[in-house]
């Protein structure tokens, strides 16, 4: 009986200690992801320009240009500016919901995150520049890549997102994202993204290029180039699907 009394506080102590370690660990994972997001997105609300170039066997096959408006982290609006065929088209993302709109049609259509925008780039790759909105970091381990110490973060989709799992490689020192691997529910590697060409933008070194490599159809890759970042606040109704018809 005495042994039981000694054993119970010991178990409780161990449990408390473990929980504490877990929470502490969890917080640090969240912090790493938050820092990654802060590097990729200069603010909760900003505007920038995008250019997507698709390659097949290193041959340039298409080019598209967009303007990206981000409001309140979870809301983004993508305006298609080039080529002419796509002029007047918009993509709206609010939380994990996506709509596609063509000017003059007055009727936004709901689409899935998986529907492709161009080449290897899915809608959410363009419309969402942060991970913490859609993904929870589950674990981190330290790895060395190209003689640089990095965290290998495993991210899991919170509810529904474009990908079920993401393995994100982040430089340990700076929290700069190096690459991401995107997986399906079944654990199949869909694509790999490399964050490149870091430049000083709005007070921080940020990647201005993301190279996305298709792991299913080998030889296909796309490069997203970001430019002209500008911190700007947009009214909340700007990101409402019914308002798309009035966007100028």
């Amino acid at each position: 009986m005495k042994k039981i009394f000694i054993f119970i506080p010991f178990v409780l102590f161990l449990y408390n200690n473990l929980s504490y370690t877990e929470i502490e660990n969890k917080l640090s994972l969240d912090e790493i992801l938050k820092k990654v997001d802060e590097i990729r997105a200069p603010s909760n609300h900003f505007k920038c320009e995008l250019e997507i170039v698709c390659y097949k066997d290193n041959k340039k096959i298409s080019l598209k240009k967009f303007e990206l408006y981000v409001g309140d982290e979870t809301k983004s609006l993508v305006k298609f500016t080039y080529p002419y065929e796509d002029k007047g088209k918009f993509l709206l993302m609010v939380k994990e919901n996506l709509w596609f709109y063509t000017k003059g049609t007055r009727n936004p259509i709901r689409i899935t995150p998986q529907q492709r925008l161009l080449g290897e780039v899915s809608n959410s790759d363009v419309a969402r520049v942060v991970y913490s909105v859609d993904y929870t970091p589950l674990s981190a381990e330290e790895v060395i890549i190209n003689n640089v110490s990095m965290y290998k973060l495993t991210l899991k989709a919170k509810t529904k997102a474009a990908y079920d799992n993401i393995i994100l490689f982040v430089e340990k020192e700076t929290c700069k994202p190096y690459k991401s691997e995107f997986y399906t529910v079944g654990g199949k590697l869909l694509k790999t993204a490399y964050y490149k060409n870091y430049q000083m933008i709005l007070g921080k070194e940020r990647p201005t290029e993301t190279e996305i490599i298709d792991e299913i159809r080998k030889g296909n890759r796309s490069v997203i180039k970001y430019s002209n970042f500008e911190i700007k606040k947009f009214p909340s109704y700007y990101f409402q699907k019914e308002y798309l018809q009035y966007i100028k």
Partner: protein
Amino acid sequence: MKQKIKLRVIIFILCSIIKLSYALHIDYNGTFMLRTTKNEFRRDSMLNPNFALVNSYQYEYKSYLNFFTNICFNENIDLRLKIRPYLTKIEKQDGYNSSFYIDEIYLNFYLFKNLVFSVGKQNLVRGVGLSYNPTDFFGEKKEVDTNLKKEEQRYYREGDYIIRCELFNDDISFFTSLAPQIHNFQNLPTRVETGISLMFENTDLSFSYFYSDTHKIGVNISKTIGEKIELHCESSYCHSTEKKLLEIKNVLGQPNSNVFEYGITQTSQQSIKSVVGGHYTALNKTNFIIEYFYNQSGYTKDEWEKFIEIIRSNKEFFVSPPEGFNPEVFKYNLSLASSLMNYGYMRQHYLFVRIWNPEVFVFDITCGMLLNLEDKSFVLFPNIEYKVVKGLFSLVLNGNFLNGDKDTEFGICPVKEYYNLEFRIYF
């Protein structure tokens, strides 16, 4: 005269607005298309015996422009204009036919931060369905270009003169549209629609109430499940829907001659129309779309059989008229039947399927099918697009193949198939 008044009104509005414009910004986009259509007619169609009713030209050449512009005069006022000028040449016919459609010309006034007031000619498009839109109340009975994809048909049609007001809040918006009856401009009775659109638990919901000569209620729901599936549902209830049927008007000749002159009778009934469907995106970019739609105001089995029997007997009488009868009577009856044909909406149960992949080698390939679930007749519409210069020029080849027995909806159509070859220039 009507055109002149229209033009004067437009010029007056433009002049007034230009006075107010201190931050002029013009944005535009559009497509110029050259299209050749080849039609194949049925030789044995009951609705067109010996090609007596439908002009059986084989080729049609059309050039047209879809042009949309948005002119912002300042942050509070903008003008939207959507036009479609056409030039058509039909084989074996002299000259060209031209038409100039102003689909939309309206002004938006941004009164407060989240209140928009619009006035002018507007093509209001509602509904989440692709193949069928029972809540598209303003678009009912409008002339559409059947050579276009199903969902495009409703975007390129003439609008109505509407006064509209829309109020936005974070996740909710309210709208009211009024299309008054205007002598010489808008002859339909005054129509009003009011409704609400909102997002609830990641589901888009929209409810609308429409009133003109009858009451209508519309509901639209759409949501995504997971990363690959989109589901939608669109339904309407109409207090009084017109149904047109062929009925005997006069007995011709002797009372037992079995030769009749027919007329169109109109009945009214409550009706429900619905479409439910989904969209699945596979990893290899192939998209699958499936929709089932129910049209309660369509013909029942008995009504359809009766309708077909009238067509069959009149076709036989037209080909070999009974003694003492002029075949023109039977031709007239057949033309009445032909005028009631609204392909794709005649019956009550339909299935729409589309498979689409935007990147098959260098082609964008789509294959769609509309199946009449009651008589199993169907239309196949394949479409292949080749982007000559990506985003600037493209070449499109598409077709419509109508299949079914002679007494079925798509089997009775005088046209058996038609192909379009289009060259598109985007700007």
